[in-house]
């Protein structure tokens, strides 16, 4: 088994709620509440969960764009939150981020060359000054953009092309870990596929490790080796892709997966959809015990008092990490994972970007 490159232990991030005339602290929004996991070298860890479950905050904590309330992240043997000033800036070379919205992640007043070349300006020892233009053009070529467009401005590109620029900036310093905060959520489905395939290609070529945050279950399944499911700031279930999608044991994961549309009409009727009652509780006042007990059909008294630990629990064919007292596999009709199919197996298996007509990323939607 490959060694871990990034280890998060009990990460907690509370945002204070201030109220009253004196702006005194009256509570906390518990955005991330005790999340632990390991990222192995060269793997892709998918993080899924609905809006507001703390996925993005987790990503920002791992980048140290936010300071955690408590917990630690060890990156490549270094305690990330203990680094200061110059040492921290040096550490940032090895862990980079790709943002969700390609429309706000690029400075509108800078050319593509400036944007992709900025990492080299900040860390001048990476590429000598003379070679920078060439390095930027190589990066643009690597992410599938025309290197001659180096002097264009972001608004002259479509969403998918902009996201490629963001990726080029992210990999410019040859990082070890790339955190992708919903990198394809803002893109059209066809463009999503192109960008996801690009990311897989880069992983093969550069040996990157990814943390892939998304709410799209099929995209995460396509790209991930392991998957973590988050609910209200906690990790509900964590395991290999097949464990999570094939043998989910946490009721929340089961409910999530049952909501994925089934493309095969003959299977559609057999599918049992689990409809959760109520809304996600407020993270400012999360339920006691198991966070999911207010909406869980299996909940019993124990769930209201005891917090279930994320530990290895049997899933029918083995065991993987799950945070449910009553973890039990359940038959969920699977969505088709195209990444596992050989080319001839299914029509959908061949509908990869490479075989699409060269339409680029489609017209820029303005």
């Amino acid at each position, binding site marked *: 088994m490959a060694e871990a490159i990034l280890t998060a232990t009990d990460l907690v991030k509370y945002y204070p709620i201030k109220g009253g005339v004196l702006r005194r602290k009256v509570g906390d929004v518990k955005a991330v509440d005790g999340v632990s996991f390991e990222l192995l070298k060269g793997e892709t860890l998918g993080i899924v969960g609905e809006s507001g479950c703390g996925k993005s905050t987790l990503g920002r904590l791992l980048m140290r764009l936010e300071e955690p309330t408590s917990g630690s992240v060890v990156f490549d043997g270094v305690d990330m939150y203990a680094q200061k000033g110059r040492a921290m800036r040096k550490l940032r070379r090895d862990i980079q981020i790709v943002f969700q919205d390609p429309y*706000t992640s690029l400075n509108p007043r800078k050319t593509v060359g400036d944007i992709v070349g*900025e990492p080299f300006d900040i860390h001048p020892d990476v590429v000598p000054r003379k070679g920078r233009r060439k390095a930027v053009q190589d990066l643009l070529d690597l992410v599938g953009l*025309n290197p001659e*467009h180096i002097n264009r401005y972001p608004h002259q590109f479509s969403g998918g092309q902009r996201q490629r620029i963001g990726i080029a900036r992210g990999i410019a310093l040859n990082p070890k870990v790339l955190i992708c905060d919903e990198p394809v959520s803002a893109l059209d489905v066809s463009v999503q596929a192109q960008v996801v395939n690009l990311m897989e290609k880069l992983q093969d070529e550069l040996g990157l490790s990814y943390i892939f945050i998304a709410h799209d279950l099929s995209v995460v399944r396509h790209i991930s080796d392991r998957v973590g499911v988050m609910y209200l700031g906690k990790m509900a279930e964590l395991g290999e892709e097949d464990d999570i999608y094939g043998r989910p044991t946490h009721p929340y994961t089961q409910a999530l997966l049952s909501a994925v549309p089934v493309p095969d009409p003959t299977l559609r009727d057999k599918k049992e959809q689990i409809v959760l009652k109520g809304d996600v509780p407020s993270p400012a006042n999360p339920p006691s015990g198991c966070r999911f007990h207010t909406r869980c059909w299996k909940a019993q008294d124990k769930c209201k008092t005891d917090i279930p630990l994320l530990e290895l629990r049997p899933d029918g064919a083995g065991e993987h990490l799950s945070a449910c007292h009553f973890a039990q596999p359940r038959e969920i009709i699977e969505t088709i994972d195209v990444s596992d199919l050989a080319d001839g197996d299914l029509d959908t298996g061949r509908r990869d970007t490479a075989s699409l007509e060269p339409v680029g990323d489609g017209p820029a939607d303005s």
Partner: protein
Amino acid sequence: MTEASTIAVGAETSAPAGHDEARSLTSDAWRSLKKNPIFWVSMALIVAFLLMAVWPSLFTNVDPAEAVLKQARERPSANAWFGRDIQGYDIYSRTIYGARASILVGVFASIATVLIGGAMGVIAGYYGGWLDAVVSRVTDIFFAIPLLLGGILFMATFPNDVDSPYLLVVGKVVLVLSIFGWPGLARLMRSSVLQVKPNDYVQAARALGATPWRIIRAHVLPNALAPMIVVATINLGVFISVEATLSFLGIGLTPPAISWGVAISDAIVALRTTPHILLFPSLFLSLAVLAFIMLGDAVRDAFDPKSR
């Protein structure tokens, strides 16, 4: 690399065609400015006033300090186009020379307020926390004192001597206008920095390990500057009129300095008998203030996408 090449070809076709390019905010603003007659009128006036300030001899070769007492209060004639004032000075010449004081005060007070207000606004908006609290409360305090009242108080406390050098007299007015003029710009800058700061490109620069100074210089300032430039242009007109007001009250620029405010003040005593003495400096003052305010308005409209 088939994938990359296919996509590169695609990128070529979907790229916008030639004349659609460069549609950044600034170029859009410039395009709409070019079509705005108000912009050209105000620019023409401003260029004329700037020329008067820099090379007054271009417009007149009459010495503004040459008093012909026996022709005092003479009405406009071919000899003295705007007539002569109570002291027998040539009004045309003095009005031309008076532009220098107004432009100097307006330009330097604007530059000073942009620098102070901009810096304070960036510090408050970018760093936040207690720095923001301190800067915001200080601007509140200055806001409570009206510009004109503050100017009167300051200039009455530190009056000019008769033999004070010209630049000291102008410098004092610039100083007082700057002291009471920067808080507005600081607030404006703070709010636009607050708007720019949460953008992902600022976060991306942080993630790359950029220093705060670099982030401010390369990412925050270029995207937060437009509103302040607009207001600073409008303020320039306001400063010119406040300078004239202070000079009119006898506490801004004082003779022998030549200024429109001083000229208006001198003309008041003869308002009913020879109104032309008052008319010309007032007209020029109004035109100068109007020109800068119109320019500011035009620029603001150009930078506001909603007005298009």
